[in-house]
């Protein structure tokens, strides 16, 4: 029982990471109907930005750096990635926006490869180790289950960011505009909404979320390399589809579900099946409920 509960905790905290990355996928898809395959690589860039900013500000100290330092590192990574997201949107996606969806998809894959290889060129292919800017502390839960402060942070962050996003989308003017653009871009534009600006805003937020996820992952698993975004990116995409792509709470539910499923399979069956389970889940959900767990079936408009 204790082992099972521990595996559950491991799974939920790892799922929090997928959830954070999945939020970015789901937002961009909701607005643009574009699966941004470069999202996982933006996440990678976020991790490196955080890594270098720790060096720039001289924060690599034993025993953590305090709240201000942590906020600084998060800010650098998130702002840097938001800027990167805008650049990618302007230079790669906007020029092909009026083309077919396939063109946009292929462009996204191209951007992803570009970021990965540029990463290898600039950062080097060997893994780097992320300094402990928050010292790891173990918290004992009842029934002998343990959880670290890093894992708690991941869970709190993904829930907090999800709530914040919901607020932005449903309670602000920008959010209203985003919903309008997602509903019908051309009509929204005719109503006087600056669609380009809304799209940029979406990309910036999505990329900043990826960066936040990257810093949190680097804290718990302090190994970063230029290809680190590849698998988590694809799995977060699966998580987004699982929860219902375009649906913000769905991304969180899908992410948590994926994390738990993976951990249980790796812990009880074999770690070789760890990656297989993600894609099995994808196939099952596409067969049973293609719109995802929290997604609504959309009927074709005539």
């Amino acid at each position, binding site marked *: 029982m*204790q*082992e099972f509960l*521990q*595996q559950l905790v*491991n*799974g939920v905290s*790892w799922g929090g990471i997928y959830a954070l990355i999945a939020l970015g996928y789901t937002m961009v898809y909701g607005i643009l109907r574009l699966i941004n395959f470069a999202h996982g690589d933006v996440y990678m860039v976020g991790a490196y930005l955080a890594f270098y900013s720790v060096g720039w500000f001289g924060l690599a100290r034993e025993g953590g750096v305090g709240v201000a330092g942590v906020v600084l590192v998060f800010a650098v990574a998130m702002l840097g990635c938001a800027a990167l997201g805008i650049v990618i949107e302007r230079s790669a996606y906007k020029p092909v926006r009026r083309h077919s969806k396939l063109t946009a998809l292929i462009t996204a894959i191209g951007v992803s490869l570009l970021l990965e290889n540029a990463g290898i060129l600039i950062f080097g*292919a*060997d*893994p780097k*180790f992320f300094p*402990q800017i928050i010292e*790891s502390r*173990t918290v004992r839960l009842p029934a002998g289950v*343990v959880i*670290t402060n890093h894992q708690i942070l991941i869970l709190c962050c993904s829930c907090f960011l999800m709530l914040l996003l919901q607020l932005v989308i449903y309670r602000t003017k920008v959010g209203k505009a985003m919903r309008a653009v997602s509903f019908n871009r051309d009509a929204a534009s005719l109503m006087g909404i600056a669609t380009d600006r809304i799209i940029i805003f979406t990309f910036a937020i999505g990329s900043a979320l990826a960066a936040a996820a990257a810093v949190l*992952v680097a804290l*718990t*698993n*302090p*190994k970063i390399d230029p290809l*680190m975004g590849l698998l988590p990116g694809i799995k977060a995409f699966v998580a987004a589809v699982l929860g219902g792509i375009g649906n913000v709470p769905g991304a969180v539910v899908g992410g948590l579900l994926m994390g738990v499923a*993976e*951990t*249980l399979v*790796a*812990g*009880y069956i*074999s*770690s*070789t099946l*760890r990656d297989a389970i993600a894609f099995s889940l994808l196939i099952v959900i596409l067969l049973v409920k293609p719109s995802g767990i929290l997604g609504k079936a959309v009927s074709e408009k005539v």
Partner: protein
Amino acid sequence: MKRLLGGFLLLGIVLGPLACGQKGGDLVIGEYGSLTGPTATFGKSTNKGIALAIRHANEAGGVGGTMLRVVTEDDQGKPEEAATAVNKLVSQDQVIAVLGEVASSNSLAGAPICQKAGVPMISPSSTNEKVTEVGDFIFRVCFIDPFQGAVMAKFAFQSLGLTRVGILRDLRSDYSIGLAGVFRQTFESLGGTICADESYQQGDVDFRAPLTAILATRPQAIFAPGYYTDVGLIARQARDLGITVPLLGGDGWDSPKLTEIGGKAIDGCFFSNHYSSDDQNPVVQEFIANYRSAYDEVPDAIAALGYDAARLLVHVLTVMHTEDPDAFAVLVGGGAGREKRQAAQRKLRDLIASTRDFPGVTGSITLDERRNALKPAVVLKIENQKYTFVERIAP
């Protein structure tokens, strides 16, 4: 133009061997390794070790008055370049023996060429079993992968007195699987219990699932024979989960990066290695002093193995010089025919194969019938993020 090129080529083929033959007077030894590329640190360390051994030999008067010369080729850590480099060494430089490589995949690329040409090759530090299986001209001065599994099993059972150990193996690495398999077999035959046998895949960053499964079986230690990048993370996450027992591993742990990433979490863990700079054996300490004065740094295990490989070769050449001066003269050069040269190289091979109890820096080296070195391994303990020598375990 084509004809001109052909002419030059022909000229090269005719004159090449002549030119080399005329150089004579020196014993030419070939070396190939990764002086550039991703594994350059391995190649450079080996190169320094070999250069030191050869310099000492020459300062001591060479082999019976004949000086030694090393021709070094850079293979950039790529198997295809390694093949080219060895081809050049064997056919153009006409070396009497080849030293290299560190990475097993590169050794496997060079070995068939040496075997075909009948030139003895000694790998300083390729631990994959397959390397010496290429043929009877291929040797190594390091132990092979599975041996470390047995060493750590003996160490865990006899020295640490453990009876319940869990295993965490890397399913994507033959090295890790090999070590884990032999560890399990040896530990069980000694009377111990393997209470868990979990796995991960190289490149994973989350090891909590298999670690939790191992924790549930209450082991006294965990054998994790992976590479340092993964092991550092494993140690951290194990401590986070409340696993306080030591981790055990092999030479895949040997990197300063291990303690950089593992931090305090890796303290109190043990791993097997080829050599320890703490070893108070005078042979080791003398080597370290010499290496320090030559390069101003502490040699790593790779440098020590390179040094041993070169020294073993020099030793065998010295034996040959006294036992069979005629064959030795053929090796030194001086217009002997192809057949005579081949016979001399076979003689050299036989002498290397008969090496028994050669006192190397990395332990006493005896070559078995499969041309692998039978030699002790050292066990190191990590304390305050530094390695300390614990004991030497014989095969």
